[in-house]
């Protein structure tokens, strides 16, 4: 769906990837959807085929959270765990993030920021990677266009 809701992904500084998305709802509601387990479970399950049997959120600085996704197909599980470092209710959450699955870029620090304007809320999520190399690898290896080796090219390589 191409519209004002388009998902944007861009590098920032040396070690960050920033994803921006506008939601047609006030900040208060978006914040609830990001922090109340019963609500989080209803949307944060990706492209489908996964359920979210565990969503524990101890929303305070030093508190931890744990998300577990389960594949409908083979029952395999993936997790995301971490600890809250900073919380400004309704505005900003900073937390550590460790992905527990087949692949992970190691522990990262994620920030979610909400800004409201004219009844719409811009959600900016920032992930800080362990090193510039890992971040650049993430971007250059296919998440952004115009790279020396484009994603399509890689698809060809993989298909060969």
């Amino acid at each position, binding site marked *: 769906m191409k519209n004002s809701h388009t998902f944007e992904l861009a590098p920032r500084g040396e070690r960050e990837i920033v994803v921006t998305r506008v939601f047609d709802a006030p900040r208060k509601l978006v914040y609830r959807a990001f922090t109340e387990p019963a609500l989080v479970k209803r949307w944060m399950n990706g492209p489908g085929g996964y359920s979210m049997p565990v969503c524990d959120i101890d929303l305070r600085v030093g508190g931890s959270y744990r998300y577990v996704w389960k594949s409908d197909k083979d029952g395999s599980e993936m997790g995301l765990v971490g600890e809250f470092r900073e919380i400004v209710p309704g505005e900003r959450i900073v937390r550590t993030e460790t992905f527990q699955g087949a692949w*992970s870029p190691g522990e990262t620090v994620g920030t979610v920021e909400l800004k409201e304007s004219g009844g719409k809320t811009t959600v900016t999520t920032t992930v800080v990677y362990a090193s510039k190399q890992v971040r650049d690898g993430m971007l250059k290896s296919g998440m952004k266009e115009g790279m020396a080796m484009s994603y399509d*090219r890689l698809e060809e390589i993989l298909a060969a």
Partner: protein
Amino acid sequence: MNAIQRLDATFSALSDPTRRAILARLAAGDASVAELAHPFDMSQPAVSKHLKVLERAGLISRGRDAQRRLSRIEGGPLEDAFDWLRDYRRFWERSYERLDALLEELKAEGNRHERAKRRKGKQR
């Protein structure tokens, strides 16, 4: 190497433009150090260095024949890494679409409460 270290190695190896170009060249077919050095205008030792990094990351394998040691691209680690990236992006895109729907619901709920409150207020 565990899964995390493997991904690090893969992405670190891919973060260099010369190494990506070498991989692109190898995608067209196996090549020796001399064959790789030529189009990149690089010394053979410099190419060898890059090949070592790529080999450590499991992105290429190198032949045993000392005379003409051919490098060959290995799809496995690339495939794993790119599966992960594709899934990551798709995960958030689709989740956010679902969040759109949920927010519409919450807004409608909020409006109903507002109307109920106003009605109550009038009754008083």
